[in-house]
């Protein structure tokens, strides 16, 4: 079903047999999850600076309610993998992901976390894509991506969350 832009509670799917209550409960929960994505403070290299830029006053992700960056994975909803993941970092990333409570989302920011990026060939210590370690929801291309691209990715993630079915 297509999303209507002005509808704050888009319903995931049409329910031909009724099921009115659950579908509306679904949309309310999705609305709250989508509009309150708390990212984990997790940046490994260059992309982390652009992630910080996205938080800064010029781009200001607080407008969307993302500004509550949590340092502990228990309280975060979203990992933005900002930077290269090396062989040594991989178990740490996996552990951080496991420590997050459900529902959890992942954005792979930048070429390194999508595929290894510039560190694809001739390197012995870089994971060729963070999706070898944890499932990724949204990929943002760039080396590093601009802050606008990250904001767009987060809005896309919101749309994705609004389309999920919980019950």
């Amino acid at each position, binding site marked *: 079903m297509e999303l209507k832009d002005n509808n704050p509670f888009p319903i995931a799917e049409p329910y031909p047999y009724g099921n009115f209550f659950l579908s509306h409960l679904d949309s309310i*929960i999705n609305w709250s*999850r989508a509009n309150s994505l708390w990212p984990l403070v997790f940046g490994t290299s260059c992309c982390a600076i652009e992630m910080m830029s996205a938080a800064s006053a010029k781009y200001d992700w*607080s407008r969307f309610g993302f*500004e509550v960056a949590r*340092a*502990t994975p*228990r309280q975060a909803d979203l990992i933005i993998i900002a930077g290269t993941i090396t062989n040594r970092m991989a178990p740490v990333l996996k552990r951080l992901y496991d420590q997050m*409570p*459900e529902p959890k989302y992942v954005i792979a920011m930048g070429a390194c976390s999508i595929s290894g990026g510039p560190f694809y060939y001739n390197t012995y210590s870089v994971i060729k894509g963070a999706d070898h370690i944890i499932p990724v929801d949204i990929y943002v291309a760039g080396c590093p991506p601009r802050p606008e691209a990250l904001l767009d990715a987060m809005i896309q993630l919101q749309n994705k969350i609004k389309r999920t079915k919980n019950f």
Partner: protein
Amino acid sequence: MLHILPLLFFQYFTTNPELILVLKVVLSIVAVISLVAVLGLFLIYMERKVAAAMQLRLGPNRVGYIGTLQTMADTLKLLTKEGFTPGESDKFMFFLAPVIVITSAVLAFAPIPFAKGYQFWNLEIGVFYVPAVASISVIGVLMGGWASNNKYSLIGAMRSGAQIVSYELSVGLSLVSIVVLTGSMNFTTIIMSQENGWWIFKGHIPVVISFVIFLIASTAEINRTPFDLSEAESELTAGFHTEYSGIQLAMFLLAEYVNMFVISAVAATLYFGGWMPLHIGHWEAFNHIMNFIPGVIWFVGKTLFVIFIIMWFRWTFPRLRIDQLLNLEWKYLMPISLVNLLLVTIITLMGWHF
């Protein structure tokens, strides 16, 4: 005959004192819980907007009108998040800690007068009831930190213990100075004593000093920057609530803001006259005009003003170190409050205040 049964029931309910008490208690509980919920939502929204204004940003503005539903979304999300207890933790204590913290925060509401006659419990020792009850929260914090089985949590909890126990003294001593001036620990009596002017104006410099000390010490007691050592984000990731998620985290966050409201309400009541409008001595006309503004607006306005000051601290100052924190209390605030108390006593005895 049957048609008068409801009437009889009504008569029975309205005349039986025990039932009336039960009814009152139930109504109070509902009122407090809804008040706490609304306060939490509003204060967190206010904090985010104040922070944004100080940092040249806009703050939340997508959900609801200028982002007013943002905290609603956050709360709903936290409620629907996976409840989580770490494997090696002490499960019972881990569960109990946020409950204790939130309970102590809510209990402190009892003696605070919101407007003339609007008070849950007109307690004779109200001034001491509030810090006494509020400091129970340290047990919850220690419990949570210890039960989490996490080193960061433990360090945060220990810091919090040292901090709250120390700053309790300054809070108490600065409250005593107003008690000395009014001769009563009852909030209503204290407010009535400010009918001809607020204590912050009537009590000369010693009361101003005691207000400043109260503000500093109570900021420390509710663990906010520059005294947020127990959850120091850049040192201990999230301090004592590192392992908490979902609804339990929501309880901790709510307790923090409710505590902030209680502390600010006490400050507003003791130093700015609570719901008492701005009265100046015997300027009858002026006082009369001021009386047209309802007491609850005065109360909320003053409280929000104090809350704003505390938020202002948070978004400007860096954090103290643990030894500096304890030095500040034991070497500066405590001696100053003691001397200040002496001054206030002299002023009261000599009748120098207005």
